[in-house]
């Protein structure tokens, strides 16, 4: 069985999804989904262990060797992502049953879990595969289920947000398809490793340049890089809270993975950064993303919107790390990928708990919550500190590496701007803290109790992970560095 782990990682949730239709009670479906997600997490940890012991794992589907068949390749980079996605999925699912009681009608619960598992399987499939077209197919699986999940939100604006996401997401996916088609046309193959061998022969052709451009734009749409981020705030704000907790930590990370994979492993470092002025472009767009989004976050009335804009800012940080294109820079990006997943899922889960209790995420309703829901608000505070980058939290570790990377490159102005961005984060986190702890509770809100255990357990698991990985950084740094080194080593 151990040799088949790569494929089991994807087909366990993939086949579990239709099986849900045969279970009747929604509680049973929830337990089933939870177990499946847990199994996926177990598999991803085993895979990471295998990669650390014996290097890249190659798995041929259907027994046909690549490039005639499709293959899976698991190396440090995807093993890390598989771990993040499956871990967050499982932890978030713990609270799902309680959360959706309030937000989704009873007769849609089974469908919710089916779509959730499909989304999970889709994301795992994108990350594990080494075939460019397979990426497109699984991208669509995860995107379609995402559109439907977001549309399950109570507010009618969820429908509009889902529609806008559908249009922008499909344009992005079609651009990616065009890019893949052009790459195929010039090389005759779809396998990632094969492409990396064959592209250098043709890489001064205009077609490959255009292929690259279309692919990058398509991926940036999915990543929500400024200015292609317009779909994200509404999608995150109006989706059911548990859906946001899951997607905020995973969906954009997968797009970042695709960016890294295609630039480093397929097109190659030298081509990618010389063909387009990618370094300059990404630094500028990343920084713009950080500042525009952070400023927007400060003025939001709805806390979900606030954190959504914060996510766009964090993606900006990841892109800046990427643009440095050094081992340290890439390590910083990967670390931030890991850390942001932990931070944002904790924050959005805590928000889900608040919404469960008070029915709204408007900041004006948060008065005095610090006293009425102490554990939940404490979690938000710690998550907020992590966003700012306070030492002892994971946020600090990734900011540290980012600053290191920009300094190594001699980019003083960028370092200063990164630190300024953290100051902005202080402002918007403080807004929440101020209202929750320093304002008197609203009239008629005495009956608000702390969140139930089904929320507190996953929230605090994530918060403790936030602090643990902020102090004991060995595992996360080791994996991120190993991934960065191997990516740099593969370039022709």
């Amino acid at each position, binding site marked *: 069985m151990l040799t*088949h782990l790569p*494929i089991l990682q994807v*087909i366990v949730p*993939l*086949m579990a*999804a*239709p*099986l849900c*239709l*045969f279970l009747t009670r929604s509680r049973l479906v929830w337990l089933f989904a939870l177990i499946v997600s847990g199994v996926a997490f177990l598999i991803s940890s085993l895979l990471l262990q295998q990669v650390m012991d014996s290097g890249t794992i190659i*798995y*041929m*589907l*259907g*027994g*046909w060797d690549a*490039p*005639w*068949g*499709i293959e899976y390749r698991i190396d440090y980079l995807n093993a890390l992502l598989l771990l993040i996605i499956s871990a967050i999925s499982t932890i978030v699912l713990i609270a799902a049953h309680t959360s959706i009681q309030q937000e989704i009608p009873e*007769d*849609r619960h089974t*469908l*919710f879990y*089916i*779509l959730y598992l*499909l989304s999970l*399987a889709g994301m795992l*499939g994108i990350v594990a595969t080494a*075939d460019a*077209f*397979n990426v497109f*197919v*699984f991208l*669509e*699986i995860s995107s*379609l*289920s995402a*559109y*439907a999940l977001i*549309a*399950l939100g109570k507010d009618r604006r969820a429908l509009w947000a889902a529609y806008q996401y559908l249009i922008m997401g499909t344009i992005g996916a079609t651009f990616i398809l*065009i890019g893949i088609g*052009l790459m*195929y*046309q*010039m*090389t*005759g*193959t*779809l396998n990632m490793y094969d492409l990396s061998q*064959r592209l250098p022969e*043709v890489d001064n*052709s*205009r*077609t490959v*340049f*255009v292929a690259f*451009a*279309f692919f990058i734009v398509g991926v940036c749409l999915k990543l929500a890089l400024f200015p292609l981020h317009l779909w994200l705030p509404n999608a995150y704000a109006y989706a059911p809270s548990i859906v946001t907790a899951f997607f905020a930590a995973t969906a954009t990370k997968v797009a970042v993975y695709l960016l890294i994979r295609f630039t480093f492993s397929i097109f190659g470092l030298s081509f990618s950064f010389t063909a387009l002025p990618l370094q300059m472009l990404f630094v500028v767009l990343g920084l713009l993303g950080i500042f525009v989004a952070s400023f927007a976050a400060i003025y939001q009335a709805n806390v979900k919107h606030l954190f959504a804009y914060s996510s766009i800012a964090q993606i900006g940080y990841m892109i800046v790390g990427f643009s440095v294109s050094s081992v340290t820079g890439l390590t910083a990006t990967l670390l931030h990928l890991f850390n942001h997943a932990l931070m944002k899922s904790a924050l959005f889960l805590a928000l889900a708990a608040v919404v469960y209790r008070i029915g709204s995420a408007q900041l004006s309703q948060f008065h005095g919550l610090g006293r009425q829901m102490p554990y939940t608000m404490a979690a938000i505070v710690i998550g907020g500190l992590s966003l700012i980058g306070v030492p002892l939290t994971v946020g600090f570790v990734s900011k540290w590496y980012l600053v290191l990377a920009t300094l190594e490159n001699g980019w003083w102005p960028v370092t200063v701007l990164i630190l300024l961005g953290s100051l902005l984060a202080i402002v918007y986190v403080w807004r929440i803290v101020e209202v929750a702890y320093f304002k008197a509770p609203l009239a008629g809100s005495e009956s608000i109790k702390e969140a139930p255990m089904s929320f507190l357990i996953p929230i605090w698991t994530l918060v403790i992970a936030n602090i643990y990985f902020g102090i004991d950084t060995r595992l996360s740094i080791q994996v991120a560095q190993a991934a960065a080194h191997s990516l740099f080593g593969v370039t022709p």
Partner: protein
Amino acid sequence: MAFLVAVAIAIVRMKDLFAVIMLSGIYGLLSASFFVAMDAVDVAFTEASVGAGISTLLMLVAITMTGRTENPSRHKPLLALAVVTVTGSLLIYGTLDMPYFGLAQDPVHLHVAPRYINDSMQEVGVPNIVTSVLASYRAFDTFGEVVVIFTAGMGVLALLSVVRHPKDIAEIDSINKSMHEEHLILRIVAKMLIPFILLFALYVQFHGDYGPGGGFQAGVIFAAAIILYAMLFGMSTARRVINQSFIQMFAAIGVLLYGSVGVISLLNGKNFLDYSALSVDPVAGQHLGILLIELGVGFTVTAVMVIIFFNFAGRRKDQQNKEKNEP
């Protein structure tokens, strides 16, 4: 090709959505004929049934609920034109270095394709090379595709399904009976045609190895027969023939059938979807594997197309009932 451009531009200009949808159906049909000219027969078949058939149908049902005309836009779409011009020029720039259309020495034909063309008969044993690539060499992609269809079905269910009350059903029944006289000719002709359509669907399903066809096209045709029945005899009658939860499980069974073939390979020690694990003779294993997965595809595609149509139509019925009940 020029026709295609003309149709596309006409769609841009027209405001009547019904006409727009008809034009998009024509666009699909023209594309299908283009595909035939390009030797892509399987693709043409699929595009004609899916792109021109189902797609047009769904859009028509949608506009019965959303309205037939488009409001004229109030501002000049300059930004959109600019974006489109930039994107288009970039693409044309990219074509300048492309290998010329149709040449046998183009890189696409040199590397991966020759093995498919030359060796697939020995390795897989099926004359239709597209089927052998789709169902064997790249079977995992096809699995992903089946899951995409399943996901769309589940998504539409999540968005549009309506809980139906017994008293509504009785009311609709009485309306139907009174309508019996009106569409008599259509109904009789349909009753004669439907068995042939179903038979044709089965033919396409099983003959996909030897000619154009296979699970997708067969599934769509089968679903078309059911939808035809539903359109002429009324949703409630159709629902009695095809039960809601039965069809959902049917969709699930298709995906699970496909996956199980892969799992059996795993249990026999080979990689996922390696058909040589299914039988002593590898080529026989290939035939068996392809047969089973195409069946799985056919099941899910039929079921999901029916689910999507029934839910759209059901939503419409629900809206009509609500309008009737409110004065």
